[in-house]
């Protein structure tokens, strides 16, 4: 997986200066936690439901091999085919070959984060196919040549005016000015996409869940575009991660009940579709070819590690919406298609730690994500675990490692702490300026520390430490 995560700092700065993005993020910050909490409150014992959901997902991870084998048998029995891809490249190759085998020219796609992860569109386009995203948000970023900035709302960072400009540039409609009315744009996109739906040879969708006992593929959308993508073309290709498999329909029901509540504060999404294989004897519609491409791409390697719990993730995006860092900088700053807390754990796993070390680093470890994760992923522990790995590989800057080494030495013995901090405080206070009362402030720090006081003042340490004052006070009390 390609990332630009090593440029997190610069990307974050750019995001902080982007007013359109900031306005959208403010909406996420203010609205999403509230509607999730309201949906949880309306549900009978949401916490218990989440525990059930966690158990369902844990069962999947603990029995992945058996469940996947059962799933494959059921798909084959229904007349479909299952393809196994170890890597993203293998997956894109399999899909390109499938397209070639049916003489495909044009492809329609519904939203799939796995397809973003394996960069499916660019692979198919270089193989000569026309690929059209049909989720409105994905369609917008496809027109703009961008990656998603949110796993559920991929075009979160785009303003309405920018959508109008993209439509004006790409739709070839003669007019004086780009459209500005949302309803008008929606109809325009619908008209353009309707043609694509009707003429496509292959429809590609993702999957929210795979049901082992029935060989079913569950796809959840708000726009119904996945239903058209999977039912109109003659071939339906599902591309998804191996961890999405679930034991039974009953278990899937549990996950569906937590998914929409966590994601958008609703009981269910607009469309929840269970699809089982290709068109059957006597049926008059549906695809003749049905293929499920199961992508590993690093997932099975997580099984034997301390990151195993991350495979429970159902991509609801609640952790993004509740994250102070995500809601400050948005998804593009992470430089990975997976952003927020889940992205900060998955991206190093898929793309390697050296280039992604900022992601687990750029977290306050506030734990709000963990407190609302519907499948109980210990996100803070996993973020910290990446930090341990990065410390062990000496990936943090020399300055950070030196600082921690010093802090460790200073704090092993109280006497050393007392002496070192005494001189440290004198040094720091020499850089401070007086404020009201006895409080002194650091307002402009020198050199590489200047950034710390760029936007805020830092209260200077006190002249005498609490312990020093206490010792004096104790001596006074005894005499």
């Amino acid at each position, binding site marked *: 997986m390609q990332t630009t995560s090593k440029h997190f*700092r610069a990307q*974050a700065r750019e995001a*902080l200066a982007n007013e359109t993005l900031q306005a959208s993020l403010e909406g996420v*910050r203010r609205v999403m936690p509230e509607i999730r909490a309201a949906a949880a409150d309306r549900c009978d014992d949401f916490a218990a439901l989440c525990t059930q959901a966690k158990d369902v997902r844990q069962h999947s991870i603990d029995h992945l091999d058996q469940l996947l084998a059962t799933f494959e048998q059921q798909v084959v029995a229904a007349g479909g085919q299952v393809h196994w891809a170890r890597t993203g490249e293998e997956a894109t190759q399999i899909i390109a070959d499938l397209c070639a085998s049916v003489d495909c020219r044009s492809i329609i796609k519904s939203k799939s984060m796995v397809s973003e992860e394996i960069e499916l569109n660019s692979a198919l386009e270089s193989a000569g196919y026309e690929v059209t995203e049909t989720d409105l948000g994905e369609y917008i970023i496809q027109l703009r040549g961008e990656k998603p900035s949110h796993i559920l709302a991929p075009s979160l960072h785009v303003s309405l005016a920018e959508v109008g400009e993209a439509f004006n540039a790409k739709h070839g409609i003669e007019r004086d000015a780009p459209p500005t009315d949302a309803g008008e744009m929606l109809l325009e996109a619908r008209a353009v996409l309707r043609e694509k739906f009707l003429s496509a040879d292959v429809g590609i969708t993702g999957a929210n869940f795979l049901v082992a006992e029935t060989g079913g593929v569950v796809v959840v959308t708000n726009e119904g575009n996945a239903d058209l993508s999977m039912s109109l073309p003659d071939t339906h290709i599902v591309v998804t991660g191996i961890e999405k498999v679930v034991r039974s329909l009953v278990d899937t029901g549990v996950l569906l009940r937590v998914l929409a509540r966590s994601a958008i504060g609703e009981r269910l999404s607009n469309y929840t579709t269970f699809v089982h294989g290709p068109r059957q004897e006597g049926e008059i519609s549906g695809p003749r070819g049905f293929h499920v491409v199961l992508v590993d791409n690093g997932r099975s390697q997580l099984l034997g590690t301390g990151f195993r719990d991350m495979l429970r993730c159902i991509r609801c995006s609640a952790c993004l919406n509740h994250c*102070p*860092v995500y809601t*400050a*900088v948005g998804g593009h700053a992470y430089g990975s298609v997976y952003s927020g807390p889940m992205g900060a754990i998955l991206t190093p796993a898929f793309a390697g730690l050296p280039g992604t070390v900022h992601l687990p*680093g*750029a*977290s*306050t*470890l*506030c*734990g*709000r994500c963990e*407190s609302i994760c519907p499948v109980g992923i210990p996100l803070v522990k996993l973020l*910290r675990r*990446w*930090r*341990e790995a*990065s*410390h*062990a590989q000496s990936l*943090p800057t020399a300055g*950070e490692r030196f600082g*921690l*080494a010093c*802090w*460790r030495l*200073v*704090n*092993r*013995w*109280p006497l050393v*702490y007392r002496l070192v*901090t005494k001189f440290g405080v004198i040094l720091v206070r020499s850089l401070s300026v007086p*404020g*009201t*009362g*006895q*409080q002194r*402030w650091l307002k402009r720090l020198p050199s590489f520390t200047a950034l*710390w006081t*760029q*936007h*805020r*003042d*830092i*209260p200077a*340490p*006190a002249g*005498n*430490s*609490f*312990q020093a*004052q*206490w010792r004096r006070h*104790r001596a006074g*009390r005894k005499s």
Partner: protein
Amino acid sequence: MFLARIELLPANESAKTVALFATCLVDLFQPEVGFAAVRLLEAAGFDVRVPDQGCCGQPNFNGGDQDGARQIAAGLIRQFAGYDYVVAPSGSCAAMVRCHYPVLFADDQELERSAVELAQKTWELTSFLVDVAGYDIGSAALDASVTYHDSCSGLRELGIREQPRQLLSSVAGIELREMEQPDACCGFGGLFCVKYPDVADRIGSVKTDSICAVGADYVAAGDVGCLMQIEGKLHRLGEKKIKVVHVAEILAKALLNVSRKDSPGSVDADD
């Protein structure tokens, strides 16, 4: 500020001992919070001791330096052995000892046992006062409006939400006003605000915006890290009306109003 010069109560030698784990931020940046905590603990009837101490090791633990965290923790476990309770005016430092020390020493049974023992008797100040001591702040009084920011570790690792609010609202004259999303992080995050100051600042601005919107006299929190982040941003903004205080300071200040009535001249407050 107003507490450093308070005459503390005479030591109560027969009472149960509380070792105050002041935490390094209180020790170095806000000594008055340490004195406020002592004042409250003594008012609740405990014999407060302050063993020689440093940091709990959180920077190393969260920075991925487990060995460093273990070394620091081993020292702290020694320094705080032998008291009935250990109390910290900080949710995150108390959580470090309570939640994380026990899992640091999987390879060393003896230290693990001591870590668990220490964890079981370590409390964050407000939860200790309410949940352990059943402390009633009595006739303490303060005419002020207060908005309380939930510090993340205290809230989510130790479940501290009601305790500080209960203490504050039992003070006569205090009006508690909730800010929007009091449980949203302030952006301090320890090393985070050092490594990513731009992002930390934006998160801090969201917090100070919701604080300013409430328009209370005080913003209180249970962790000096959060207070420094919030106070630093408000100070840069030139916002002088809202006083940023540790919850212990405001409670101790309210106590002071009582003792002032009881024995005039025994205190020397300067606010």
